[in-house]
């Protein structure tokens, strides 16, 4: 579905990503773990084209997306849920949910309405809050809203940056479970997480990032076998 080939990025003189290779097949869930500042967020920003690429390439459905603008990529189905949720505080929950979907030409009003119902079913709390401004939601609710808002867009590739950030374990579990279920629908998920093991538990493949390099990768199950090693890299 999406393939990253020898990707390098730099902000000014500082090189932040070195020769990253990563692949997310359709219907698979890929976990990217690593310490703070290892470059996990930068990787996602590069894939969603917010970050200029200095080397390598990114292929989506076989086509290079180097030259694609972020908003066009999002409309094509590569959806990125950034860190900190980025809920528009002045808009209501429902407006937030529709925000992305409204932009996608292939979605007609009926589709959108259907998706809306689907998301309300997924996170009932959102239905209760549909008319309240996004700004007044709790952290957990905001995270749910952010995920739902992305799913409203019927993504082919869904990228999440630290969805567990500052959330109670229950919520984290709920969200991760929801993600796992998604993949069965053919969506490929790229999950960047602090809670490394929690993420790897549900992932098909895992990548360990350190100082902008991939230092370890493979089936999540194999990686989990050697927790100490990963611990070392996380630290």
């Amino acid at each position, binding site marked *: 579905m999406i393939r990253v080939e020898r990707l390098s990025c730099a902000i000014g*003189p*500082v090189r932040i990503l070195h020769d990253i290779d990563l692949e997310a097949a359709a219907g698979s869930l890929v976990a990217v773990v690593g*310490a703070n500042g290892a470059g996990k967020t930068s990787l996602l920003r590069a894939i969603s084209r917010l970050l200029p690429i200095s080397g390598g390439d990114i292929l989506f459905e076989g086509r290079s997306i180097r030259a694609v603008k972020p908003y066009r990529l999002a409309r094509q189905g590569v959806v990125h849920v950034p860190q900190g949720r980025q809920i528009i505080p002045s808009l209501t929950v429902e407006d937030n949910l529709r925000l992305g979907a409204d932009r996608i030409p292939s979605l007609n009003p009926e589709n959108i309405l259907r998706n809306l119902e689907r998301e309300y079913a997924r996170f009932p709390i959102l239905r209760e809050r549909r008319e309240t401004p996004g700004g007044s939601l709790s952290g957990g609710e905001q995270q749910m809203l952010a995920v739902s808002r992305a799913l409203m867009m019927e993504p082919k590739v869904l990228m999440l940056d630290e969805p567990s950030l500052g959330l109670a374990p229950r919520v*984290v579990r709920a969200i991760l479970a929801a993600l796992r279920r998604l993949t069965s629908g053919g969506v490929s998920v790229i999950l960047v997480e602090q*809670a490394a*093991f929690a993420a790897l*538990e549900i992932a098909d493949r895992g990548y360990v990032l350190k100082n902008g390099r991939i230092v370890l990768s493979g089936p999540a199950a194999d990686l989990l076998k050697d927790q100490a090693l990963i611990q070392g890299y*996380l630290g």
Partner: protein
Amino acid sequence: MRGRLRYLVAAALIAAFPLLGVNVFYLQLAQQVAFVSIAVLGLNLLIGLSGQLSLGHMGFYAIGGYGSAILATTYGWPLWASTLAGLLVAAIIGGLVGIVALRARSHYLAMATLAFGYIVEILAQRWIDLTGGTMGLFGVPQLNFGDFEHGGIYFFWLVAGALLLLQIVNDYVMQSAWGRNLRAMKESESFAAIVGLNVSLWRFGVFVASAVLAGLAGVFFVHQNGYISSDAFNLAQSLTFLIAVVIGGLGHPYGAIVGALILTVLVQFTAVLYDYSLVLYGGILLLVMLVYPGGAAGLLSGIYSRLRPTPKAVRVAANERAELDDAFRGRPGEGGAGESLLEIDNVTKRYAGVTAVNRVTTTVRRGTVHSLIGPNGAGKSSLINIISGLYAADGGRICFRGQDITGLPAHARARLGIARTFQNLQLIYNLSVLENVMLGAQSERTGFVAGLGRWCFSSSFEADLRRRALALLGFFGLAPYADMTPGDLSYGHRKLCELARAVMQQPTLMLLDEPIAGLNNEEAAEIADAVRRLRAAGITLLIVEHNMSFVMDVSDRITVLDYGEKIADGAPDEVRNDRRVIDAYLGVEAVE
């Protein structure tokens, strides 16, 4: 060599210029350039260094001018007295407007100053009994020292001389701690606060100073021709100053003079092309802002430095590791190691509903390395921000060295000896690495005049400060990068640079917010090493960090937070084996 020669040459030129038989017209233009430069100099300091925008400086120009003119003409004061009085009035009004400047920022400040300018314009025009309005004030005594024949020449010498002196002061400010602090403040007020600067005071001071300079320019203006009319004081004048600053080069030491010069020439030029003057002005504004944001002075100095690059300053201990102690003189510990230094008592912090820190209580003991760990969003950074005074706690109290500091502003806490680093680095990118470190040394500040004197006449200006900053850079292995800007450094080096700055503050307590996040093993090792040596030097450290092995390695004591609650507090071993900690930190329970 700080260009003392330059000033002598300038003085010589000033002395010679009028004697070269230039005609009255050019002499008057020269006078005009000189006093306009003075006003622009002040505005350049205000906007370029302290980042406060004023759209109404003509107001101070007018107030200074009218103050002196009216006293000298209507009330027959001697010129020296009326001049001083004019400056005083400008200073007082500047203070009043400055109070607004303290509260209002960016466009609100722009609005306030603009309104002020209008008020002055209207009063000057309509308070006719006082100002004479548009019909003007006659017989304003000229500053010609009783010699009408050569009065113009004396006047030029006076104004240009004043400009030269002010230029020297200006250069001093820009090259000394004063300028560094202002630039720091402009980029980040919170940073300025945590190195111990009283931001409000500084903003106020600069505002008043620039008001006085504008007033001085006004004083010279009204005594140039012996006649003034309110038409000379309008919004356009404020914009003229502004345009001069930008064209000349915002924040550039010579921006003011260059700008005033260009503008004066421009005005003469457009006198004939009056049908196209606005296109000209507008075009120049766009051109400068879009193509040469550095302004003319910036452009010139750029060319100049390309022609002959300035030699790197010779530095002590360029590469080899300096010993920390010779740079760092630990404060005399008021108490023995082990006794409590910082007490956090039931501190609580909420943001819009979310409770980030919930009734946390712990004690940091003198001479120890105390770590604060927990998953993201556990409230560690919030706690650090509360301790350093950037956030106000919603509940509880904090005691430092036995003194309740809960109510103190950040800069006051810094002065008490609390230094910190930031998770997302706080470095000043307009300053060199060395200067960033020097920013830490706020504790020993020399008086303005004393500093000016040393800057002018002693070759060892700030030498000691420099030496110690360099030594510190040496200690962190950054000496080779001293002259670069933080922007040119790698992430790891930036972290070290910030650490060096914090040490430069000679703190009793250092708060490190994720000191090794994003560093590679070697760098991390360096930091760990540094931490130990700082501890040895008698500094107490409170560290927020994810990296377990690092924390276990350096800490004497560890406090663990989770969802704002303290879940463990003890020696590394106890904490390591605490089940709740493992669960919370490695998020294992999500696995089961």
